[in-house]
């Protein structure tokens, strides 16, 4: 596209062109209106003058006949002015008057007409225009009275000139204005496009220029810049996560590979092969578990399934999951208690909240059960909403690490020796966010208190669809 073509194609220019057409039409209409009225006015004046002359001459003719008329015409013809006169005989012989060079037969009949004429004695000059009246007098005499209309013609010419000039001016100014505006707009748009291109090419740090004029372009630039900031943020987050994932999946993958290699090198009989392959499958399953957890976190994080939330009973979830883990807790030498006295209805996913509670209990059993303590699960409500708390009496998490522990793949140094992938709390936090809630780690003095705070949904909710458990609820060891 040529630069001109680009310019002509801009919205600004098209708009200018449209305005131009409107204004040109308008000015032409105004001038035509004015000239029409001016013409009418002048024509009226001409008529009035001629009529007055005729009335005067008719009076003279009535009093003194043709002779008197000729004398008067003779006299008036010598006056200067725009009036023209002529008196002839029937055969066309001029008796008096100040006109010559009339077209043939222009006196043949009575009536009003427009004619070109010449002043008597000025034969060389070009004829002037006039409007005349011809009378046929008794005896075949002809009387012509008229008035030069050159003035009128001149006015017409002036007006038509004005029309042309103003039209030309409107067009020229309009085009120039259009080009100017379009050029300005195009300049800024081009600058924006250029910046956008470099950003797209990979330089995400580029920003659109903001001139400070606070016009629409500035606002557009500001909004776009804000969007770029957000994209940058997300990209950074994404990069960090994918770096972490790549790094953290390397460990189990390396382990799996080593195991396969060892089996290949050293396994000598059927049993050893079998054991190795089973181990390898277990390793693969662990990796699949990591992927599943990551997918689940990603899905919850992106708000996927938020429209699938249904009325659930948080107390029931807490109880059923605690009940699921109770034998395991006992085996590990811990006492698992539940306090979920009343049903707590909220919009949620039983599956995801259940998984979250399971993760919290598993952590308590993994990191705190060795201390032989008690793991207390409770589900209660207060004015802020529902709270699901899993509290243990283990070593807890130092304050400085509490926020960090919620991130993906973060495992504190003290627990590296235990199995786990560092995704448990990240998943709980993602589930909390999906439900519009939060996960916070608190000091249980001693131990850890993981608090999953979920907003309660508005009162009038239908009964939860999950089947209630048979045993009665209450503070008790399950």
């Amino acid at each position, binding site marked *: 596209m040529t630069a001109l073509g680009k310019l002509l194609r801009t919205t600004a220019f098209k708009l200018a062109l449209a305005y131009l057409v409107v204004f040109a039409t308008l000015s032409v209409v105004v001038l035509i209106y004015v000239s029409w009225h001016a013409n009418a006015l002048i024509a009226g004046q001409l008529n009035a003058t001629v009529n007055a002359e005729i009335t005067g001459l008719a009076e003279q003719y009535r009093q003194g006949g043709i002779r008197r008329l000729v004398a008067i015409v003779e006299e008036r013809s010598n006056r200067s002015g725009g009036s023209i006169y002529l008196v002839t005989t029937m055969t066309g012989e001029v008796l008096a008057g100040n006109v010559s060079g009339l077209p043939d037969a222009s006196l043949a009949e009575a009536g009003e007409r427009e004619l070109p004429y010449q002043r008597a004695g000025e034969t060389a000059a070009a004829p002037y225009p006039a409007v005349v009246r011809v009378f046929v007098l008794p005896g075949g005499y002809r009387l012509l009275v008229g008035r030069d209309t050159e003035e009128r013609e001149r006015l017409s010419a002036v007006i038509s000139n004005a029309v042309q000039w103003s039209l030309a001016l409107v067009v020229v100014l309009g085009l120039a204005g259009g080009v100017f505006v379009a050029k300005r707009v195009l300049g800024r748009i081009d600058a924006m496009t250029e910046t956008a291109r470099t950003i797209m090419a990979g330089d995400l740090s580029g920003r659109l220029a903001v001139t400070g004029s606070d016009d629409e372009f500035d606002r557009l630039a500001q909004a776009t810049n804000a969007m770029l900031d957000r994209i940058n943020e997300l990209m950074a987050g994404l990069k960090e996560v994918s770096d972490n994932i790549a790094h953290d999946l390397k460990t189990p993958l390396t382990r799996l590979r080593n195991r396969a290699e060892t089996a290949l090198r050293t396994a000598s009989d059927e049993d050893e092969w079998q054991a190795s392959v089973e181990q390898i499958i277990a390793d693969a399953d662990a990796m699949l578990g990591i992927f599943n957890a990551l997918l689940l976190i990603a899905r919850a994080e992106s708000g*996927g399934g938020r429209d699938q939330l249904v009325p659930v009973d948080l107390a029931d979830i807490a109880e059923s999951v605690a*009940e*699921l883990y109770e034998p395991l807790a006992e085996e590990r030498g811990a006492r698992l208690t539940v306090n979920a006295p009343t049903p707590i209805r909220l919009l949620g996913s039983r599956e995801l909240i259940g998984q979250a509670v399971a993760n919290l209990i598993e952590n308590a059993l993994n990191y705190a059960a060795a201390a032989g303590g008690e793991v207390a699960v409770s589900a209660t409500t207060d004015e802020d909403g529902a709270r699901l708390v899993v509290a243990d009496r283990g070593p807890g998490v130092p304050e400085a690490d509490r926020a960090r522990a919620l991130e993906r793949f973060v495992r504190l140094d003290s627990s590296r020796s235990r199995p786990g992938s560092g995704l448990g709390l990240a998943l709980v936090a993602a589930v909390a966010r999906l439900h519009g809630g939060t996960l916070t780690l608190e000091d249980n003095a001693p131990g850890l208190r993981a608090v999953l705070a979920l907003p309660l949904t508005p009162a009038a909710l239908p009964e939860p669809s999950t089947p209630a458990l048979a045993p009665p609820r209450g503070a008790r060891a399950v």
Partner: protein
Amino acid sequence: MTSSMKLLIVEDDREAAAYMVKALSEAGHVADHAADGAEGYEFATSGSYDVLVVDRMLPKLDGLSLIGRLRAEGATTPVLILSALGHVDDRVQGLRAGGDDYLTKPYAFAELLARVETLARRGQASAGDTVYRVADLEIDRLSHTCSRAGQEIVLQPREFRLLEYLMRNAGQVVTRTMLLENVWDYHFDPQTNVIDVHVSRLRSKIDKGFDKPLLHTVRGAGYLIRDGAR
């Protein structure tokens, strides 16, 4: 164990399908393979199968539509949906479309086999009976009582449901995930062996002190309750 079943596998991944057909035949079953939804529909309507295993994403006719069409025509053959989509609502969608069970890829073959066999037996299962019996072990589903050799055994409500599920599928391997799904109604996979602890508790109640164990662990697969004599 279970008598031989005839299965239809509707799966567009030929390698996966071939593996499944082979593994199923090793387990004593016969499996046909259809490579797309349209072919699957043809096979399903012309042959009589005990269970259909249907992949969700299929060329020509997707899995859920295939199931919907079969169900609309009154077919009651149990269907196991196989899918790479494993999120909660994907499962709900699948079951709503008329699937009877849902298994996420990748799966352990033992899991697939156990589920397929359970589905195939669903028709004959004694879901309506009030009393389940395996050898001298007996539960009454109305009075929620359990006894072995005439001796009453006291079970917690959850232990009762666990035993009830195992006995409904007596002679059938059930996996840990099947137990978690059917007894606890959760579909996530716990990091630890929670189910094992529940089962061993149950086992200590029903098998301890009797010379013939009824509740067996099947290595690499799950659990099985059966009269060892058979």
